[in-house]
């Protein structure tokens, strides 16, 4: 276990250097970059991606992948918004079952957990590759979102709910608090618990892990459930920030999240990587998005630049891991 901890700390550094360089360049190019307000902007904007990417990291560590996070995010946001606004109508008695704020949020989280459980169940029970199983879920959850919302946004959700996405607490935006809590729990989970070690073991060598008596199914399903719940957390944050659940929310979020994981130095073949690396990856993407807009770079070029940054990060990572 000692060697494992060592590799983690080395890997943490690489994205940190990249982030530092990026910040130096951007602060030279724009005097607005290094301002307190802009820093809060970036932190608030990346908090959703951090939540999703933390879940994605756990999955990737088991050498899996989750393409369905964006759709699951949309569905959970819509469920929370829908229950909050309209409740559940009971036609027989012509009444509504209303939901409190907490109830609606819990329902959204439960839906996320259930979809994650379904992913994990299909993958472990039927041996469907994670790529395929979650690709199917990507379509299923998006379709369910359309069915639930009938294709129209659910807006006007009230001030209390909007507080989650736009409010401040002790000088820090609520979404940043939420992502911080998620990071701390996930960091503790991966470095201090049995299940954390199992996750690394399964990704490193599934057969060996099985032979040493790890309940692979249980660990994998747990990981997908966590990812589902975290996608729901992201969905609730997005919905609250916009004061509206959009049926097309979270489109291509899985790509940003995989990019954060990869830039953070987690290996897509599993077993190697860390939560803090992913957090740095997400910050790099957030800073890059923000910087390109601050500099008013043409939208055509932005996509090209982003692609090259991802490529560069992975190439550096590859070169370094070979050198070791």
């Amino acid at each position, binding site marked *: 276990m000692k060697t494992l901890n060592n590799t983690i700390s080395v890997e943490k550094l690489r994205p940190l250097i990249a982030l530092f360089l990026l910040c130096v360049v951007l602060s030279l190019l724009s005097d607005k*970059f290094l301002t307190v307000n802009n820093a809060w902007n970036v932190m608030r904007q990346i908090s959703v991606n951090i939540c999703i990417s933390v879940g994605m990291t756990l999955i990737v560590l088991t050498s899996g992948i989750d393409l369905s996070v964006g759709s699951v995010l949309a569905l959970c946001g819509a469920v929370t918004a829908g229950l909050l606004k309209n409740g559940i109508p009971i036609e027989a008695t012509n009444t509504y079952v209303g939901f409190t704020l907490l109830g609606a949020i819990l329902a959204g989280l439960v839906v996320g957990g259930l979809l994650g459980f379904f992913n994990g169940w299909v993958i472990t029970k039927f041996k469907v590759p994670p790529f395929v199983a979650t690709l199917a879920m990507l379509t299923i959850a998006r379709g369910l979102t*359309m069915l639930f919302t009938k*294709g129209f946004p659910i*807006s006007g959700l009230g001030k209390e709910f909007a507080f989650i996405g*736009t409010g401040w607490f002790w000088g820090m935006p609520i979404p940043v608090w939420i992502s911080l809590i998620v990071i701390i729990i996930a960091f503790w989970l991966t470095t201090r618990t049995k299940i954390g070690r199992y996750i690394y073991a399964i990704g490193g060598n599934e057969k060996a892990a099985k032979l040493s008596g790890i309940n692979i199914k249980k660990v994998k399903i747990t990981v997908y459930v966590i990812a589902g719940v975290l996608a729901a957390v992201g969905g609730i944050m997005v919905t609250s920030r*916009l004061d509206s659940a959009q*049926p097309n929310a979270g489109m291509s979020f899985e790509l940003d999240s995989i990019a954060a994981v990869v830039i953070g130095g987690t290996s897509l073949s599993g077993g190697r990587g860390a939560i803090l690396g992913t957090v740095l990856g997400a910050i790099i993407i957030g800073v890059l998005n923000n910087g390109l807009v*601050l500099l008013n770079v043409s939208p055509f070029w932005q996509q090209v630049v982003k692609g090259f940054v991802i490529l560069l990060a992975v190439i550096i990572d590859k070169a370094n891991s070979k050198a070791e």
Partner: protein
Amino acid sequence: MTLQRLYRILFVLPAFLCLLASCKQKDKKNQPKKIAIIISSLNNPWFVFLGETAAKKAAEYGYESKIFDSQNNTSTESEHFENAIVSGYDAILFNATDADGSVASVNKAKEADIPVFCMDREINAVGVATSQILSDSYSGCVNLGKYFVQQLDKKGKYVEILGIVGDNNTWSRSKGFHSVVDLYPGLKMVAQQSADFDRNKALEVMESILSANPDIDAVFCGNDGMAMGAYQALLAAGKQNKVKVFGFDGADDVVSAIKDGKITATGMQYPALMANTAAQFAHEYFGGRKNFPEKMPVSVEMVTRKNVDNYVAYGQ
């Protein structure tokens, strides 16, 4: 039974049934006509409204109809056309994914003697579609641009938030707007960024733009979803009263936001009018009418606080 034989039956049986079905249809005049409604993308409420209104109108005339979702993908769209032609639809109400790329599909329908009525989005071909009922985005944004100039008193800094940069609606709106606004040297565009017609992206882009340009006077958005996102960012920054927001579409929440003075103006498109006209044209086509206008522009009206009481979402 060998697998091969099973396949053969699986293929032949439906084909045979189709043959029966189509014969039946020609025998019985009172069989309801079938209308295919092919929509560019159902991921946007505006298009959902367009499609559903067309379906409702078709049902009023007593026709069967089905909505196909092209998912913003021209090749998916072309498959829908092939399926619609093969399964014997009598007319197609069409909202194109791409002005040039969709022409081939419409041509296929024409060869199969199926009339195609384009709604909202143009195809760049003459004499292929039976009629095109189009929203005049360009002129709509010219008017919006004039109002923009007047509201800003010909001077100030502004931001433009574009839709999907690969979409021709994005550019017809942007060009219409700039054809007016660029004539005034006092109006300076300090940032032009894309937010993909997406409310969340517009919010994030606007937050970053506000960091770089804290002293802007107005923002012009390529659709109403982005206008709401931009407004949300201004609200969080406490600048909602200083910065004027302009949108385009005439969506539900923007109409009420204009009433509340949160958003300055939007271009009201008439999806219901376009959808109803297309369904009505199909009805008249079945009734024997053959001469339709090649293009029928549906004007885009400007909604401001002064006249907003005359409007509801997507119409008057």
